[in-house]
């Protein structure tokens, strides 16, 4: 390995530190990030690095899980979850799917998968946004987030052998019950929020908000809560700064990962092509669906602000507009569901056969 002639402008010691510092920044901005030394070992496919990388990928691919919940997944469950999530996202390399479930091997493959994920889009920033500290009472006005993230496979999913169809009916009933509960709890929460917002009117120095949120009220009530919030903000600050560092330094990482290696470069290129294709297909679908661009439908989390009835209010979405948009969405979805059910009815009628077969009496109330 001959040394290249270096210009003296850059101190060699700095150059040698650049890569581990870049990786350290990346690691700090990701949840459960391992040390740079672990990355190095993974590159050499050392077995001791594999578990840490499985854990990292699990946290990265299931960011919606709270810390406590993700800790309850066994290592095997985490491995299976990572494989499934990567498959869902279209990861092309089969070698990863063939790694053993006990998480003892595969550092090098996992490193490649991580690079693939990083290449597809702004992964650290997305994770930071998802887990950011929220000061206001926020409510998403669309269901895109919930739909986009497939939940991880439940840890104990094995249906032993065959299952009775009546068990399925029972599960459906249970699901209906849970939705009803959810609806009732949600209504109660809205009522409580409405009260808190109107009771704290005039307490916020930001006139466009006018009242406090739950977090802000708690902050004032409870010094311990304030301290905890402070700690969370400090942690988030540290991660944000690490994300900035990472963006400054990531070229070093990419040189190291990709530099000159043909197959890896083409894997990255394919990943990009797919990612772009998916984004634009989604955009196209959104444009065709409902006859308008997806921008016409409000998106994302919004901070709730209660205004006096009749007051014009400042910039922001108005609840009646969102309600309209949701109602039309609801109507569209109901049509789709009825169509599917109608299809099933016809199909079943066909299978049962024409008279003189048995007579079907449909249930009343439709």
């Amino acid at each position, binding site marked *: 390995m001959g040394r290249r002639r270096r210009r003296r402008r850059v101190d060699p010691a700095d150059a040698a530190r650049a890569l581990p510092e870049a990786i350290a920044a990346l690691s700090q901005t990701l949840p459960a990030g391992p040390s740079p030394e672990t990355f190095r070992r993974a590159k050499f496919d050392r077995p001791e690095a594999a578990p840490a990388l499985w854990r990292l990928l699990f946290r990265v691919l299931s960011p919606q899980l709270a810390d406590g919940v993700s800790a309850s997944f066994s290592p095997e469950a985490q491995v299976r979850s990572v494989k499934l999530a990567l498959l869902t996202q279209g990861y092309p390399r089969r070698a990863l799917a063939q790694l053993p479930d006990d998480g003892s091997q595969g550092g090098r493959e996992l490193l490649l998968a991580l690079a693939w994920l990083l290449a597809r889009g702004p992964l650290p920033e997305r994770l930071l946004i998802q887990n950011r500290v929220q000061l206001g009472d926020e409510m998403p006005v669309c269901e895109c987030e919930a739909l986009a993230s497939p939940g991880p496979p439940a840890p104990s999913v094995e249906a032993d052998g065959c299952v009775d169809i009546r068990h399925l009916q029972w599960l459906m009933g249970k699901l209906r019950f849970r939705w009803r509960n959810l609806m009732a709890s949600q209504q109660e929460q809205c009522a409580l929020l409405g009260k808190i917002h109107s009771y704290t009117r005039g307490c916020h120095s930001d006139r466009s908000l006018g009242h406090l949120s739950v977090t802000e009220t708690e902050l004032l009530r409870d010094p311990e809560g304030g301290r905890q919030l402070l700690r969370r903000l400090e942690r988030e600050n540290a991660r944000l700064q690490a994300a900035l560092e990472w963006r400054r330094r990531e070229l070093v990482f990419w040189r190291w990962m990709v530099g*000159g290696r043909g197959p890896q470069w083409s894997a990255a290129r394919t990943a990009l092509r797919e990612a772009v294709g998916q984004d634009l297909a989604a955009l196209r679908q959104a444009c065709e669906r409902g006859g308008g661009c997806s921008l016409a439908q409000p998106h994302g989390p919004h901070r709730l602000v209660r205004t006096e009835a009749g007051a014009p209010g400042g910039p922001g979405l108005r609840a009646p507009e969102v309600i309209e948009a949701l109602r039309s969405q609801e109507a569209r979805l109901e049509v789709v569901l009825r169509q599917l059910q109608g299809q099933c009815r016809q199909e079943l009628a066909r299978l049962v056969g024409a008279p003189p077969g048995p007579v079907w009496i449909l249930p009343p109330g439709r």
Partner: protein
Amino acid sequence: MDTAFTLLAGSSRRLVAELRDALDSCAERQRQLERSLRVSRRLLRAWEPAETLAPEPTPGPETNEEAPSAACIPSPQDLKELELLTQALEKAVRVRKGISKAGEGNKAPSLKSGSIATSPATRASYPPSTSHRAGSRASETKPPRGILQTRVPTKDLPERRLLSVGDQACMGQGAGATKPKSGLRNEQIVLSAASQAPEAFTLKDKGVGKASGPAWTWPAPPGSRVDPKDWMQEYRCLLTLEELQAIVGQCLHRLRELCTVVEQQLGPWPEGRFPRASLPCGGGADPIWSPQLLLYSSTQELQTLAALRLRVAMLHQQIHLEKVLMAELLPLVSKQEPLGPPWLALCRAVHSLLCEGGQRFLTILREDKPAD
């Protein structure tokens, strides 16, 4: 008879897994909602002690609320802590501004003087609970209206003072000294990081990239003349542009067709009368880091909105489950031996699941052969 109800192992695994998945996501939402409910109920208890709210399963954290605070005026310690909190919140706003402006190479993120982050702490001369202490009057009127009256002029914020009623001597300029300094230093790091971002690493020019340090024996990639990261960015941009060009072309084509149709039927297209799309107008603010506002005017409105959102989510889930059930159950019905009683029972169950959402069942009448 019961054998008709059993399913093949393959489809039963998938169906049960899908249903369990749906149940789990519902349960997760419920858990989050209950967490928020606990907090809200606890907060409201101070304002509405007479109302019987839902029973609280965990009485632990609430006892702190009931314990009377040490004094009606917050101690210097509390004020110092509030000041630290203000600074942390200010820093958070700055760092967030730094992130969103780093791409533009903006070297001077300005402190948003009216920012949300700084306001709660500055209002806290009197914690709301003191009004409750003030007497039973609190339960009759709406207490918080009277409390936090001090209006902090926002231009004072950069000086990091909390204005409390006549008690400025308590402001910790001495005790809090270390924190503000470190805050400033971090801010400078952030600023310098942001300002250096445009100057991308030019390691290729310097021939660096070989690991030469003793602790790091990374395999050295052979030198390449173009930064792979730049390549990827470029490539991505090119691909996106190509695809967007195609989409725009199609949209323009369609628009032209529509225009001709409209003009034929209704006359020329009216200028400037497009329906106002409900675009979230953040007024230039970055919608991701500082979330946009959703204004509602009554509790009823909020409840309707939330209920509709849940309904849309539920419909999405129902449609997905319907498709899965169709895919697994319809082949089952067609494969079975037709017309025996077990098969009819299966049909009835499948019909209920697929066509009535598992809620209703149909009745099947079968004509028995006459016994003679």
